[in-house]
């Protein structure tokens, strides 16, 4: 399969272009967040500069709430991920191991639900949320985010649990293990990769979600993307350095996470969409 030197050079060049297209906007924001304010718009842009933390300091002074909003994002993300994984593991196990008309119905329902545009549920939910007095709470976002990913996660867990030989469960059963012990001692450890794959998607979604946060939070549960959009939309003109500092703090951890969890993203996509 060795190709000629010229073909290799072309491929390397194309790959370099693709990497630039993908990474340039991200690196631009991260690097610019450490640039002195007057150099942010220098032309042509230069990537040689002595780094400064002035924008981070100003972010701390001018938008102190940003850090509690980051904490909100973290709480909501962890909550939604745990809720998704717990419910998806329970449901995925039953869907992997049993067949019945009811299960065919619930499984099909989960596929249909993934096709519906999330925006439409905001209209009926809005009055209900106010009536329940859960507007602007972490719990509300946790439940909404988990619900939009529980079907994909269940699907992923089902695919991973199906690969675990039934004999292992039967052996545990003979040894006197109940359903709960089988789940905790046999299924969960052996489907750990599925748990990670199912987590990645809801975790990235919850950390980055904008629309539901815009509709359903006003103050105490506000998440980081919403505040970044507010910094972007201030009437007295955009403070780019401060904005880049906030965006960098929000995006660095999740980019690192996605790159580290790369193989789970691939596995999850394969289990969740292609095989259906």
């Amino acid at each position, binding site marked *: 399969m060795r190709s000629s030197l010229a073909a290799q050079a072309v491929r390397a060049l194309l790959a370099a272009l693709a990497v630039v297209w993908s990474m340039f906007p991200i690196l*631009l*924001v991260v690097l610019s967040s450490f640039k002195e304010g007057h150099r942010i718009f220098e032309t042509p842009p230069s990537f040689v500069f002595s780094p400064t933390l002035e924008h981070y300091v100003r972010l701390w002074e001018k938008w102190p709430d940003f850090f509690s909003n980051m904490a909100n994002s973290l709480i909501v993300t962890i909550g939604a991920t745990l809720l998704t994984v717990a419910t998806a593991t329970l449901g995925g196990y039953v869907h992997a191991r049993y067949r019945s008309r009811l299960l065919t119905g619930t499984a*099909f329902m989960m596929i249909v639900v993934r096709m*519906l*545009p999330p925006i*439409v549920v905001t209209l009926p939910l*809005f009055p209900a949320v106010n009536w329940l007095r859960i507007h602007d709470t972490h719990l509300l976002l946790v439940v909404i985010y988990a619900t939009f990913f529980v079907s994909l996660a269940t699907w992923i867990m089902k695919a991973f649990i199906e690969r675990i030989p039934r004999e292992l469960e039967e052996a545990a059963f003979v040894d006197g293990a109940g359903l709960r012990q089988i789940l905790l001692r046999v299924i969960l450890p052996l489907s750990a990769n599925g748990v990670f794959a199912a987590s990645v998607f809801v975790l990235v979604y919850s950390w980055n979600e904008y629309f539901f946060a815009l509709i359903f939070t006003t103050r105490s549960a506000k998440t980081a993307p919403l505040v970044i959009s507010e910094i972007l939309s201030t009437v007295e003109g955009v403070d780019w350095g401060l904005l*880049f500092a906030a965006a960098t703090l929000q995006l660095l951890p999740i980019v690192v996470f996605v790159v580290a969890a790369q193989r789970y993203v691939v596995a999850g996509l394969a289990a969740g969409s292609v095989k259906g």
Partner: protein
Amino acid sequence: MHRLRPAHYLMIAPAQLMLAAVIVLPAISLLWLSLERYTYGRAPEFVGLANYLFILGDRAFWRASFNTFVVVNIVVYGELLLGLGLALLVAGWVPFRRLVVSALLAPYAITEVSAVVMWRYMLEPDIGMINYALMAIGLDQIDYGGDPVTALGVAAAMAIWMHTPFTFLILYAALLTVPVELVEAAKVDGAGAWQVFRHVKFRLIVPAILIALLFRYITAMRLFAEIWLLTEGGPARMTEVLAVYLYRQAFKYHEFGVAAATGFAMLVLSLAIAMPYLVQMYRRMVRDAV
């Protein structure tokens, strides 16, 4: 252990309850809401199809529908071409393959809000680096604030940038499953690179392409933040898409009935696009259930 016991019903209950409470019941009640005049400070009042007649007579609704149609198609097919090209590139020989895949995946981790930040920064009038470069070589600047077509183009570019990783990964995974023997056999029979792609690889990844297309059609229709944070649908509501139209009717004009009618139209459209896939999945699941 092949019969469902009560414990098993309890195990599927939490996910099903969440889906029912947050998605299914609200989606059904949307139909009811769309038949009402519903705004702040007034009791909801049944108005029949008046909301549907209103949006059908609203130029802004047609503008939003047309914009959505154009942008969604540009985004979906743009991503398909780019994703397929990248998948073919990376599935062959590239230096540092793992790093390249990581870099191509990175935009998936970026929130729409930050994507808008990045692109608005590069497109600032006069000083943003793209506009500066365009001026330097004597071309017109990209003016997303003044020209609706340009604004929609910028939004489409952002969406393509953010979502290409999805299409790329699905097609890349599919290409990796193409048996090497088939490719080699075709080459022995004298097929060139294009013929190998056209008659071997392409045919084998058609299912993956269809899945990627379907999911992106469904999700691209949800486009909101890219437009809202770029132009708020302006100037003069020329750059609205359906989600922005719905948001404005509901949360700016407080016409929840009109918004619900829009939402119901979006819902029906999504299901219509998904119908072939859903029918196929249903058949397969009924067959496997035996």
